[in-house]
């Protein structure tokens, strides 16, 4: 199947929706009645929305930056390529919520009391260690950068599907994103997230209703898709040996998900701990949507889409099934869907740099704006001058690295007195060990363990985390932590 340019109507619809969102987000400070929360300074208002987002804004914001545009492209692409295995995103985004419910309100309370804005702030307060603070900040920064690059790639994918050649459209998208973040701060993605979400819901619901009708119902769709994919044994849905990678990838992704700067920024910007608990109940609605989005990968097979470039599966499917104006709308949904998380990611990264890596403690909103701009420029350079595979590989490693901040951030909440030294040692060994394994395996997310003649692939990130926690435990037993100084600034 060849990609046909969908014509001017699709392009006009696309530009209309994209431009409207940018305009709305950039001017948020004008049309929003200006009312900074009491005691919130200007930089806290820019970088954390003044910590006053209620249930619905938090729902749209976290939903908008956790389920990114890249997800809409990448999850169906993986399902298209691997079949049922690609669905591990579903258990991942279910089990993450009990975790959010138990852990995030505690982190929020600590952050609120100490006016912390980042994971590294919280760790510094808990352990009073500057090196550990830097370690956590660097993990966050390096993990989030390729994520921003992937959002830009998401925008480029849909622009290319609209038939626009060259890099100019990408640069236009980038400039829009930069203006939007610079002017609006966290308020821009927070208040435009609802546009993105409604557009994505419309696009996906239309897809999951219209496409199976075209293909003769879900049973027929699953049956046709199965003919294009490797056949599992017997009554199984997964191929032999895929069960353990499926479960361990779901678990490691779930543990890492809310350690990222962008997701944590969304959580810390909530108004209260109960806002977060309410969201742990409400956010699974997006997971349902994600499950349907993942189905698009199977529907593409059933609709006869054949491509070796799996990231264009979703655009090709939309073009094949929908009238061109609606394809334009769906592409705009993906592009807008990339802006929201990319803005939150850049802000999260800026918070880390200005508060934890530089020592200004984030008082200067000008510096935060410049850093957020620099971070996005880096992501753009990565997309323009290095290939997309580089961003994808780095994002994989980023997931492994961010997971190594789990002990300091989450185990640090328990009553056990871990020392800063133990945490730092665990972080170093976990990060180095995981990175080494990942390179040895040719940048794959799983590593094959040989246990007594039994070969089993396991999530590399999870292995590294186990090693990390093991080191922390041993070091803590050998050299117990002193009484923690929670007031160290």
């Amino acid at each position, binding site marked *: 199947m060849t990609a046909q340019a969908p014509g001017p109507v699709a392009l006009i619809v696309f530009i209309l929706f994209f431009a409207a969102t940018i305009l709305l987000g950039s001017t948020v400070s004008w049309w929003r009645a200006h009312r900074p929360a009491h005691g919130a300074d200007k930089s806290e208002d820019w970088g954390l929305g003044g910590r006053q987002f209620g249930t619905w804004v938090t729902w749209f914001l976290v939903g908008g930056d956790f389920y990114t545009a890249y997800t809409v492209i990448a999850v169906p692409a993986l399902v298209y390529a691997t079949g049922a295995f690609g669905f591990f995103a*579903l258990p991942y985004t279910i089990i993450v919520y009990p975790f959010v419910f138990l852990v995030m309100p505690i982190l929020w309370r600590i952050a609120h009391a100490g006016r912390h804005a980042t994971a590294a702030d919280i760790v510094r307060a808990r352990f009073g260690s500057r090196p550990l603070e830097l370690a956590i900040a660097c993990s966050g920064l390096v993990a989030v950068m390729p994520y921003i690059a992937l959002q830009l790639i998401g925008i480029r994918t849909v622009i290319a599907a609209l038939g626009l050649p060259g890099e100019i459209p990408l640069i236009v998208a980038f400039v829009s994103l930069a203006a939007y973040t610079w002017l609006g701060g966290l308020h821009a993605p927070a208040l435009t997230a609802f546009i993105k979400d409604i557009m994505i819901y419309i696009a996906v619901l239309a897809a999951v209703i219209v496409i199976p009708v075209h293909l003769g119902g879900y049973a027929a769709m*699953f049956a046709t898709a199965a003919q294009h994919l490797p056949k599992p044994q017997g009554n199984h849905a997964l191929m032999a040996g895929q069960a353990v990678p499926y479960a361990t990838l779901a678990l490691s992704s779930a543990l890492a998900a809310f350690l990222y700067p962008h997701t944590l920024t969304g959580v810390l910007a909530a108004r209260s701990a109960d806002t977060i608990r309410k969201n*742990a109940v409400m956010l699974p609605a997006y997971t349902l949507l994600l499950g349907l989005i993942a189905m698009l990968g199977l529907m593409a097979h059933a609709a006869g889409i054949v491509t070796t470039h799996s990231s264009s599966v979703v655009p090709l499917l939309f073009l094949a099934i929908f009238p061109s104006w609606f394809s334009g709308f769906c592409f705009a949904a993906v592009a807008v869907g990339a802006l929201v998380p990319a803005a939150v990611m850049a802000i999260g990264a800026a918070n880390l740099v200005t508060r934890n890596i530089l020592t200004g403690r984030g008082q200067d909103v000008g510096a935060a704006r410049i850093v957020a701009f620099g971070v996005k420029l880096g992501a753009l350079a990565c997309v323009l001058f290095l290939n997309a595979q580089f961003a994808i590989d780095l994002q994989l490693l980023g997931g492994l690295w961010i997971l190594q901040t789990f002990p300091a951030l989450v185990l640090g909440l328990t009553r056990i007195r871990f020392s800063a030294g133990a945490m730092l040692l665990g972080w170093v060994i976990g990060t180095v060990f995981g990175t080494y394994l990942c390179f040895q395996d040719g940048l794959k997310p799983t590593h094959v363990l040989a246990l007594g003649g039994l070969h089993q692939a396991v999530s590399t990130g999870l292995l590294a985390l186990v090693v990390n926690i093991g080191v922390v435990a041993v070091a803590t037993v050998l050299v117990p932590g002193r009484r923690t100084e929670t007031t160290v600034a």
Partner: protein
Amino acid sequence: MKMLRLALLLPFLGLLWLPFYDRIEPSFLGFPFFYWYQLAWVPLTSLLVLLVWKKGARS
């Protein structure tokens, strides 16, 4: 009420132990078991979290 929190382990058990659902049949509304089982855990987890939260808050 600490005991109630153990209910939050159920989604982990139900979804990380693949022998529970790595199968095609029985299918439901055209969806193979593998898919509808996992989709069913979405509202179920939501309800469990709600239950633990509300019951926990009352005590």
